[in-house]
């Protein structure tokens, strides 16, 4: 019984083990699997390995239209897409997904390459 009293007294003078959460946030550890941060569309080659390896079929890749989309509500944040990506264009974010109002997919489109002006023809 007295062991616990000693413990209680110690806890009264020591600082709390909890944080005042919304005001003080603990920084995430390095390489925490928070969420799939996105896909660097400059590097993506639309091979589709990520969509085939995804255990929850959250990723859709369209090679002809050059789009890459992820459904964050299907994603189980296993990090498999980022680890299998041959170009390492998919990256993980250390922050967890914030709450959302609508179930929206995140669709990324590769910017079309700037038209190469062929000066020789004009000249």
């Amino acid at each position: 019984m007295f062991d616990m009293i000693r413990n209680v007294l110690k806890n009264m003078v020591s600082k709390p083990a909890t944080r005042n959460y919304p005001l003080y946030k603990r920084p995430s550890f390095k390489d925490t699997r928070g969420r799939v941060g996105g896909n660097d569309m400059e590097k993506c080659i639309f091979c589709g390995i990520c969509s085939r390896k995804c255990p929850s079929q959250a990723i859709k890749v369209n090679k002809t239209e050059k789009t890459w989309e992820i459904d964050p509500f299907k994603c189980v944040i296993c990090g498999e897409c980022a680890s299998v990506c041959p170009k390492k264009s998919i990256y993980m974010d250390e922050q967890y997904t914030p709450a959302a109002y609508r179930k929206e997919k995140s669709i990324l489109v590769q910017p079309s390459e700037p038209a190469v002006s062929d000066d020789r023809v004009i000249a």
Partner: protein
Amino acid sequence: MPKTVIPFGPQHPVLPEPLHLKLVMEDEKIVEAIPAIGYVHRGLEKLTEKKEFTQNVFVVERVCGICSAMHALAYCQGMEKLMGVEVPDRARYLRVIWSELHRMHSHLMWLGLLADAFGFESLFMQLWRNREKVMDIMEETAGSRVIISVNIIGGTKRDLSEEMLAKIPAVLDEIYKDLKQVESVFLNDYTVKHRLVGVGVLSAEDAHALGTLGPMARASGIRMDHRMTGYAAYGELDFEPVVEKGGDCYARTVVRLKEVYQSIDLIKQAIGKIPEGEINVPVKGNPNGEVISRVEQPRGEVLYYMRANGTKFLDRLRLRTPTFANIPALLKMLPGSQLADVPILLLTIDPCISCTER
């Protein structure tokens, strides 16, 4: 005396998981207990037939959050046996470290929940504060608090850096010190002993006949622990299962308390012996044939049966979790006990209903 039926659960403050017990009562004494499960069935066994065998690692991890590393380990070990993959030595040791961390956080959580069930709020807080240190190690090393996703077929996905290998024993020493302080409350406190000693006695014969597993069996004096077979790297570590003779709630508490110390010891041993080298080997081809794989979880032994047909998809995956095997023992203990003891009795089998129903 007329009999009354009191429903216990599926929602009850002592247990966040939905186990429904119909308690047939005579006054305050239980005459019969009728269990009902099926409130959180998710059909994960069926789902594994729809996913590729490599993706199934992520499915089986989600059978249970508390012992996710062990579920993945059991599945991966089975698949490796089927495909003839030799896991690198370092990966075997890493698997032990993460498994024991899982066992630690599960037992600390359970001890806290038990303290909460007999109304010792401050003890509950003490234990969960310590558990948080384990969770932080898990997040720092594996990237997530519970579903750590480190095991893959052929090894592990992540490695432990030199820095972490030095940090983990230091944190474990802290936990050891803190736990030693509250240990005597569980073991010697008059009120706590009054709630635990002699409640729900399960003899060794009954425990054996009913097929109990894990800490339940060990508290009844059965020396049974699947880690003794030396899977992963357990064979190379100095290990002796914790066995108690009492068979009551007190003995089960003591077993789990001592297993936390044992896990600390095993992790330190594994860190001391961990060899350098690769952490995984590439796996080629598809599995064919059938295999049974067993692993010791915090709650007991989990059994995986897998049948593959040479394609990417499995024919069947069947898993038996320890709680399922321990429910008959609970039904044996309940008749004859008082209604006020039901929460304690239920907790001492450490039920994981989402495991049981998959």
